[in-house]
């Protein structure tokens, strides 16, 4: 097994069960999405257990934002590895994702039992627009963190708008995504943006 990467963790190596318990708590107590998950991760890793420093946490947070897919999974893996090597990474990801995934499945199964009730259908007429609105708002906030400063921001927002328009006229999002990554590699890398939105902001 590779060595833990955190000096703080080497001083007080946690037991696997303690690690698993912390990540289980994160996976089952963070309601509402990424921001509450991030809050609990920092609370457990830095404040309560003191398994790493604030700076180490921020380093992994910045790295996780370069990963494909769900960034919180990448962050769990990075933080877990920092605390207890490969074993820590495995415990962190499993400890968070398995209970949270099972809760989501149970919620979905439970919803399936009541979805055709008139009251539930009426509620969905309200939750639908507000949830779609939140999805758009959170995505805008995500795009804002990726946009560079100064005049280059205009180019970056044009890419967002062009992609949105392409979404209406191009049948395959895959083509748009590959084009976006290529254009980015060729034209959008000249200024590396320092993350402006710290999870502790």
């Amino acid at each position: 097994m590779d060595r833990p990467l955190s000096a703080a963790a080497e001083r007080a190596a946690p037991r696997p069960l303690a690690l698993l318990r912390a990540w289980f708590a994160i996976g089952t107590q963070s309601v509402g999405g990424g921001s509450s998950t991030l809050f609990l991760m920092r609370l457990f890793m830095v404040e309560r257990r003191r398994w790493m420093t604030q700076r180490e946490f921020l380093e992994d947070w910045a790295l996780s934002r370069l990963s494909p897919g769900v960034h919180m999974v990448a962050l769990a893996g990075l933080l877990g590895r920092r605390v207890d090597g490969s074993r820590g990474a495995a415990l962190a990801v499993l400890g968070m994702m398995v209970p949270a995934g099972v809760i989501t499945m149970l919620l979905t199964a439970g919803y399936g039992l009541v979805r055709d009730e008139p009251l539930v259908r009426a509620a969905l007429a309200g939750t639908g627009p507000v949830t779609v609105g939140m999805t758009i708002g959170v995505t805008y906030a995500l795009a804002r963190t990726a946009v560079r400063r100064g005049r280059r921001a205009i180019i970056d927002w044009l890419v967002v708008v062009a992609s949105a328009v392409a979404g209406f006229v191009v049948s395959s999002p895959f083509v748009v995504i590959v084009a976006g990554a290529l254009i980015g590699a060729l034209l959008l890398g000249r200024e590396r943006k320092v993350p402006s939105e710290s999870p502790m902001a």
Partner: protein
Amino acid sequence: MDALELFWTFLQASFLSLGGQTALPLLRQQLVDAGVVTDRQIIEALTIGRLGTGPGGLYMVSLAYFALGWIGAFVALVAITLPPLTILPLATTLRHQLLSAPFAGAVRGLALCTSGLVVSTTAFLIVPGTADGVNSWWQAVLLVAGVALGIEGKRHPMLIIAVGAVAGVLLSR
């Protein structure tokens, strides 16, 4: 669509996204166009994802449940967990390259274009005149409020969804 195809669909969407929500355009194209799930189920999955615990990207597990039941949900859980973990070996072996301008540009390009695609995808979900579209003034108000609160990011999603549910019960006929 069988379990293996579903696994591949979610794995691919996850690999080509930055953050869980940006997988939505690819998932909608592959699942709705194939008749595996409906737009209504996408909206339902997004809502359940906000009400559940853990990362917001778990709406994909809910969506997979709609597509293929418990097997689909477990398959999707594995498929969306694997791609983010590629950062672990990359962070140690290619740390220098991860900080290079072309890579930073590719990540930025991916983030920007998938964000734009999410806007067009969500627009398809709420087209006025459709069964699940925004068909009344109060639904339009809820949509705009949802956008504003999503940008603000300070109110609890469960509270926002609860307000939407109450409004729906009181105002829909």
